[in-house]
């Protein structure tokens, strides 16, 4: 151990002389880790938004086989029978804490580039306030049933034009008035517009709902609710805990983003690794004599290999830190509209760990081979060299 520290310190003291070639590793790794972490921050932000949308004590019901809300249809009769199922929480004011939702979309312009974006317009039932208490008005007032009124999420309002209170939004049967603004703890709902389901559906001349969400008596009541729904007569339905549903919904998109991140970051990392190999090989060969002297003095091969690896790891770690810092400074917290959905990029501690781990693995490879070569140098030859 003492040997390792001694050799490593000796090596590191020569770094200022080789500043240029050491910087190559740092810069290369910074670029690779920066690219990796920046792209991953998009999927992490998306995942965080989706996760905060679901709650473990809510369950969502869709028609069987529907891949998501958009592909689901629930008739009025189905919705009525669902409200009476056991396991659903009751409330003195609304009786049952449920909401049959209808969701459509409207086209708005993105503020930054003026391009069209499809924003979800969600019609919710009268008990929505009890079902989704995280939705809180920050200004204005609630929409009134029977009136062509909507409230808008803060994320939608900040990213898209024409969604201020008092603005009119193009929806069926003319223009609907924006009467309030809400937030909901950074969830997906903040990129949506909310209206009264019955009013929205009659204006769209449809009677079929898209989804049905209930608040369960407790998170454990899901099994009871599920059993009761499955055993009732009528068309088959799929019931999922809301948290699972949103995790499923986000899976393919996060997978897509992660693939891009690892392909781009991986290729750049490979390039940076070759740079590290290069630097470490030249570092080792320029120190042939010192290393041979140490070996002649009785330092072990292990100490020599370790010292080279530690040096490579230090360079890579420095690069990773720079890369992560740049990603953090440039992207963390940025809001980005993808289609009609607003994502807040998140450079999470977990991503920082991923980025650093990625750099260290590459650094290990970049240091191992040159280290072995350094240890293998025949002492006599190396001492005679130069």
């Amino acid at each position, binding site marked *: 151990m003492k040997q390792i520290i001694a050799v490593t310190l000796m090596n590191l003291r020569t770094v200022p002389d080789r500043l240029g070639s050491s910087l190559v590793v740092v810069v290369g790794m910074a670029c690779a880790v920066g*690219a990796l972490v920046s792209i991953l921050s998009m999927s992490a932000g998306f995942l965080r938004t989706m996760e905060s949308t679901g709650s473990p004590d809510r369950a969502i019901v869709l028609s069987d086989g529907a891949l998501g809300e958009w592909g689901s249809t629930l008739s009025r009769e189905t919705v009525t029978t669902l409200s009476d199922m056991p396991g659903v929480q009751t409330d003195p004011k609304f009786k049952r804490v449920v909401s049959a939702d209808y969701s459509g979309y*409207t086209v708005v312009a993105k503020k930054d580039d003026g*391009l069209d974006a499809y924003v979800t317009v969600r019609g919710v039932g009268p008990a929505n306030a009890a079902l989704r208490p995280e939705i809180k008005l920050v200004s204005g007032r609630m929409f009134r049933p029977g009136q062509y009124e909507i409230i808008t999420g803060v994320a939608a309002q900040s990213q898209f034009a024409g969604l201020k209170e008092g603005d009119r939004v193009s929806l069926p049967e003319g223009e609907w008035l924006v009467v309030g603004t809400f937030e909901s703890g950074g969830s997906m709902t903040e990129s949506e517009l909310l209206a009264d389901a019955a009013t929205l559906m009659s204006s769209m001349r449809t009677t079929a709902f898209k989804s049905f969400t209930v608040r369960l008596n407790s998170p454990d009541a899901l099994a009871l609710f599920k059993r009761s729904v499955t055993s009732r007569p009528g068309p088959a339905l799929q019931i999922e805990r809301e948290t699972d549903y949103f995790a499923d919904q986000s899976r393919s998109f996060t997978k897509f983003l992660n693939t891009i991140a690892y392909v781009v970051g991986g290729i750049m990392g490979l390039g*940076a690794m070759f740079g590290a190999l290069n630097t470490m090989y030249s570092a080792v060969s320029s120190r042939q004599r010192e290393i041979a002297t140490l070996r002649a003095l009785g330092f072990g091969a292990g100490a020599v290999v370790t010292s080279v690896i530690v040096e490579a790891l230090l360079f890579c770690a420095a690069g990773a830190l720079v890369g992560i810092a740049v990603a953090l400074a440039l992207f963390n917290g940025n809001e980005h509209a993808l289609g009609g959905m607003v994502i807040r990029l998140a450079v999470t501690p977990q991503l920082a760990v991923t980025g650093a781990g990625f750099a260290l693995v590459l650094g290990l490879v970049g240091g191992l081979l040159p280290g072995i070569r350094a240890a293998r140098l025949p002492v006599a030859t190396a001492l005679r060299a130069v």
Partner: protein
Amino acid sequence: MKYLPLVWAGLWRRPARTIFTFLSITVAFILFGILAAISGGLAHAVNAARVDRLIADPKFGTNMPYAYVDRVAGLPGVTVVAPRQILVGYYRDPKQAFGIVMSDRRFFAVRPELTATKEQIDLLMRTRTGALITVLSAKQFGWKVGDRVPVISNTVKKDGSKVWTFDILGIIDNVDQPGRSRFFISNYDYVDEERTLEKGTIDRMLVRIKDPARATATSRAIDAMFANSGAPTRTGSEKSQAQTGVQSIGDIGFFIRAVIVAVLFMLLFLTGNTMMQSVRERGAEFAVLKAMGYSDTKLLAIVMAESIILCLMAGLAGLAIAKLGIPRIADLDPDTGRLLLMPWSAIGTGMGFALLVALVSALAPGLRARRLSITDALAGR
């Protein structure tokens, strides 16, 4: 040319260093090729989209009445209008859901890129549960002409079942993307008679027009016709929709440029460092050359030439791997492959970047060789 052996020998003075630098540059240009293929693929999608085809979708997500089709067909300049309803379902694996186009013979008139023959279309029209599928779909599911295939859908039939049976009548292809296009086309009457909800409605109209110059005017006319109804439309040419679609994926262009800048920046450091190391080590050799009468500028040129040869060869290798490799990815996964198309021009651009990297990164080392004083270098100072 006669200096080539000298330059070549200089490059191979330390093979390990040259090889690692070469590999770094190669890898960077593979990435460049992939990024060029992504933007090329998107550009191709926009180019392949037709200006004489309008797409009319529901403005707010609710289906449109089937009767719209005839009203749109009556507009001046409109040659044919096809109704469309997508039936979403899966075959065996619920995770591999796909859409079935439920339409009629007019669909083939608005999509002439599909190779269905008149006989195939006639047969489809006579067979309510018939279907024409593309080569790729046939291959994916292992279906042949004559097969009767069950598709599980979330659309319930009037008998309460969700199993929709289709008879495969013919296998067609898309001339725009031979072998890489998915289509499964059946009859609108089949879905509309069997479904229980949203009867008599469609989710899209495809409109063929005579004069592409009238695309915007005709789109406006269609939207105006239904503006005050319960199901207003939103119409645009396929081309303008493709453009919006590409832009809405996010700032792909910005992302690609950012990555390319990062990669080039990394390469500048890498190659610059390699050349600098090489020049430093060879102080004495350069001094000998100078003593033999090589001019300062000639030495600068020799260093530049080494850098250029290294970068261009490695760049070409990377671009060639990308150009040859990307179609292989497309063979493995047609859905990803469809989005990737690396144009030949990308090789030119890539080589341009390689040259730029070579020149910039060799500048400092080259000047150092140029400035080198014979006595100092020979004395080992």
